[in-house]
């Protein structure tokens, strides 16, 4: 059963007159970071080394300022017509025209989700720029780092502002490349290089699905443009829609397959099971990069993609179910693994995967607003968690929990902000995560009971592993590490982003989000049930209490627990052996079976065949081999056999 009103937002995405009240100003939002990339990339190392950080930060500050202005104008002044938020195309260029009416365009579109993403991306990116001024100080490739950050921000903004699916794909790839550069930034560290390669290959593999999906969808819709594509594929009367539903392949309609393939691309970027393996390894990159890319922006691109095509997903229940189940499974799967990891960044990485799982299954349960709201709040508190973790690592010089403990006195600001973020992600009232998670669970409750319970269990696990992390870093034992390090918590540039994000994580829940972002552009009446909120809140408190018992003071309870859960604990700690499975498949099966078989076939069958046919030429061949290899005769035999085989095949076999 589908909500009828969800099927109607087409008029909203219909192309509007190209000239809008915004003028060209919003185009500057992605272009300013790009200018930073070009400037710092070309001249950074030689001429601008000393001011590169400030230059990049200032450009981003300007971009963020324009972004906030645009958001204000859009949401409160210009965006609505007759009470419905419109999609406004700032400009549009025809870029490649295949035939009249079928072309690839480049443009910028403003609608509720893209404007929301502008705010998220510019905010987090700006704060990461500021934070890195302190965190990356003394790095010899400082300017390069800032130019990569600029490139990434440009690509991400281009992605969210795309007017058509092909433009989005190009920026999608550009995001992948810039994240490859940033993960592998410490290129003299072999693990970082391996991680960046892994991320690149896994997401490339997924992107292939995305590309084929684009081709399938646009083949039927005869357009790459989001508005036209959505219109064509959601209006049941049109011929395109009929043919897309009628064409079937392996039991699914072409439309479903197209959507599934697109979703594969989204799942790769958003680290959904089983394409999540790159995300934990990607933590090899600098920590501010993890905060920007692997918490707030790039990893949610998959969610954004599904949201962008939400009306089309709506008409294909199998595709919606896939989104829902993959999201829910990833959420609980990652939460279990997160409980056992000891590297703090990896805990956060799995936590990210789990939270993105929430957003995905919320979409699968038709909870569009809730999913976008969670995307928004998650960006704030997860960026905060990463940046705070960065501050901790900065002091401790280790990612391992065992090297930490008792840091609350040494790092009071970090401690406080980290606590706020933990409360927010656990869903404790009145912090931001409470409200967005509430919305998601409500959507799940209305749609599918199983998913709802998965959500509840995951919430409990989330609270548990976050507070396990919190207690292990800040409590448990007295800090007795090297006290010689004078830099303490890090300077103002590192603390300011933490404080700003903490304020956001504490207060963002009170934004009337449903009024601004909804599937059909109409403000949504938010209903809030206290009695419904009690259970999620209860399990979260339970999870925190449990973590308190186990990890507040050092004791042997965690070890006993681990022993009791023996096999399961080990499996979870080894991340359920997914990495091993992949390496088994690639090295053992593909390289060994296919590679060796091909070599064997080459050596024995093909050569044997040639030797057999060429026994008369063998003698001469041996003679010529004296000169070099003498394979020319063999080549001729191959040639002749190939030609005769083809001729026989088409004369006798094929007809």
């Amino acid at each position: 059963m589908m909500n009828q009103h969800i099927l109607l937002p087409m008029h909203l995405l219909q192309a509007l007159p190209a000239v809008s009240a915004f003028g060209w100003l919003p185009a500057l939002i992605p272009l300013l970071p790009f200018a930073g990339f070009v400037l710092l990339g070309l001249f950074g190392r030689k001429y601008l080394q000393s001011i590169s950080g400030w230059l990049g930060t200032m450009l981003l500050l300007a971009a963020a300022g324009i972004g906030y202005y645009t958001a204000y104008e859009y949401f409160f002044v210009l965006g609505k017509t007759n009470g419905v938020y419109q999609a406004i195309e700032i400009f549009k260029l025809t870029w490649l025209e295949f035939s009249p009416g079928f072309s690839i365009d480049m443009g910028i579109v403003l609608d509720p989700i893209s404007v929301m993403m502008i705010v998220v991306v510019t905010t987090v990116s700006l704060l990461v720029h500021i934070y890195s001024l302190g965190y990356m100080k003394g790095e010899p490739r400082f300017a390069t780092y800032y130019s990569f950050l600029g490139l990434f921000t440009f690509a991400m903004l281009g992605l969210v502002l795309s007017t058509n699916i092909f433009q989005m794909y190009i920026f999608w790839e550009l995001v992948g490349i810039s994240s490859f550069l940033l993960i592998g930034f410490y290129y003299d560290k072999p693990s970082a290089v391996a991680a960046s390669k892994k991320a690149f290959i896994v997401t490339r593999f997924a992107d292939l699905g995305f590309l084929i999906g684009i081709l399938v969808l646009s083949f039927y819709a005869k357009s790459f443009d989001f508005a036209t594509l959505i219109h064509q594929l959601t209006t049941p009367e049109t011929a395109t829609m009929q043919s897309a539903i009628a064409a079937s392949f392996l039991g699914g309609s072409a439309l479903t397959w197209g959507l599934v393939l697109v979703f594969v691309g989204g799942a790769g970027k958003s680290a959904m099971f089983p394409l999540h393996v790159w995300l934990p390894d990607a933590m090899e990159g600098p920590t501010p990069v993890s905060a920007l890319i692997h918490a707030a922006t790039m990893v949610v691109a998959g969610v954004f993609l599904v949201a962008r095509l939400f009306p089309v997903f709506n008409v294909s229940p199998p595709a919606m179910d896939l989104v829902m189940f993959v999201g829910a499974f990833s959420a609980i799967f990652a939460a279990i693994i997160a409980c056992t990891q000891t590297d703090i960044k990896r805990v956060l990485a799995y936590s990210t995967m789990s939270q993105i799982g929430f957003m995905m299954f919320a979409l699968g349960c038709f909870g569009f607003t809730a999913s976008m709201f969670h995307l928004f709040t998650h960006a704030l508190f997860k960026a905060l968690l990463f940046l705070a973790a960065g501050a901790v690592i900065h002091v401790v010089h280790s990612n391992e929990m065992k090297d930490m403990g008792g840091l609350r006195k040494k790092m009071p600001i970090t401690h406080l902000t980290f606590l706020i973020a933990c409360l927010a992600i656990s869903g404790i009232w009145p912090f931001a995560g409470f409200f967005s998670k509430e919305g998601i669970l409500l959507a799940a409750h209305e749609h599918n009971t199983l998913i709802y319970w998965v959500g509840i269990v995951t919430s409990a696990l989330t609270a548990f592993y976050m507070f396990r992390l919190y207690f292990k870093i800040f409590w448990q034992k007295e800090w007795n590490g090297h006290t010689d390090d004078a830099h303490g918590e890090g300077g103002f540039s590192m603390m300011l982003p933490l404080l700003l994000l903490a304020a956001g994580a504490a207060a963002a829940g009170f934004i009337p989000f449903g009024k601004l972002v909804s599937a059909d552009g109409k403000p949504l009446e938010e209903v809030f049930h206290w009695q419904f909120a009690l259970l999620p809140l209860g399990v979260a408190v339970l999870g925190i209490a449990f973590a308190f018992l186990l990890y507040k003071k050092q004791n042997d309870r965690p070890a006993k627990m681990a022993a009791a859960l023996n096999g399961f604990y080990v499996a979870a700690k080894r991340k359920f052996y997914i990495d091993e499975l992949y390496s088994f498949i690639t090295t053992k099966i593909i390289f060994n079976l296919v590679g060796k078989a091909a070599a064997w076939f080459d050596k024995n069958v093909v050569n044997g065949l040639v030797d057999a046919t060429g026994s008369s030429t063998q003698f001469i061949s041996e003679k010529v081999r004296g000169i070099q290899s003498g394979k020319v005769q063999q080549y001729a035999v191959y040639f002749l056999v190939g030609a005769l085989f083809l001729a026989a095949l088409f004369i006798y076999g094929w007809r």
Partner: protein
Amino acid sequence: MNEFFILMKSELLLGIIIFILLFIKIGKGLSNEKMLVLIQSLLLVNFLAGFFFNQTGHLFGGMFVSTSATILQKNILNLGVYLISMLFSDWFRKHIHMPEYFILMLSAVMGMFFLVSSGNLLLFFLAIELATIPVAAMVNFDMQKRISSEAGMKMILSSAFSSGILLFGISLIYGATGTIQFAELPLLMKASPLMIMAFIFFITAFAFKLSIVPFHLWTADVYEGGPIASTAFLSVVSKGAVAFIFISMLYKVFQPMHEVWYHTIILLSLCTIILGNIFALRQQNIKRFLAFSSIAQVGFILVGIGANSGAGSISVVYFILIYTFSNLAAFGVAAAISEQTGKENIQDYRGLYKENPFLSWIMALALFSLAGIPPTAGFFGKLFLISAGATVADYWYIVVVALNLIVSLYYYLRVVRAMFMDKNEFPIQKVQVAFPAKFALIVCGVAITVIGLLSWVWDYIQTALI
């Protein structure tokens, strides 16, 4: 008479340049250095002249045809030749028989021009021979190296064999239809067993020249043995010319047998892509590596040819233009390094970025483009080829082709990784690149970056072809 000069203008111009070179050689007045500059200027003039005074029509009773498509194709070939003359300056400059090399190369190019303009089977056969035999001598041009002579020998033997089968095919076609004119053939042709056999024998010649599996075996030895300039010429200009005539033969002359050739193309493209990839995975020598990877590239061209539509032929020409830039850039870098250090193994490229950032970036761009990573031009080339092919092909076929794209990504990136990321205690020292080569590399790099983004390139090809 006037028409004769204008329609055959490209061929005549090449003939004039060949004569100039012959006289220069006899004169012996010029140093190699000056001669090379002269040759490069002549080739530039030759390339630019391709854009003026163009006229369509036919000569000698339809034997020689000039259309807007052939003019465009000749321009692309001229561009390739000009870039080759610039890229391998270092090698040319030192070679004592440099003018002869260009005489051979231009003779082969003249053969290719006649090939794309041919209007009957007779001229076709003569042209394909003219386009091959000089190349065998070019492969033999590293005079003091035994491996080079061997490669030349292998090339001439293999191509003689291929020509034999081609002639057999041509005679069968003539026997079945009674004509050799391309314009008349489609009217008289039907898919009888005799005709199928004739057709298969006929296309083996294309398959040989394009090194399509299983007719590719000569490729690796010849590419590795010959001087890099010859290898580049073979893998770019020669393949481009054959692909151009291949597509117009299939689309026009063999249209009545469309079903047969379509399935042949699918089969051959699968073999070529898969085996080309598997072999490229194993290569350690950069020239062999580029050779095998170019085999796989041809497999992708076949995917586009299979479309049997206007989009198919546009995408093939578009791809070949991009492939010219990408592959020549890769060969150019490999040549610069091999010429000065003698190193040709991928292993030796580790840490190249440290001392040679310019060469590394150009190589990386070229390999990205060959691998089809956006936003380089190669991505758009592959995209249009595959989407043209996808309009008629089965899903599974496109899926297999797409999976092979991923495999190719692996081995192209392996080289990039070696250059940028792998450590090497003794990386290749700073390589001095001659100015013409540097210029050509920059041209290639810029082209790779922008061609995909400039929509008028596609439009230009479209107007020329349709």
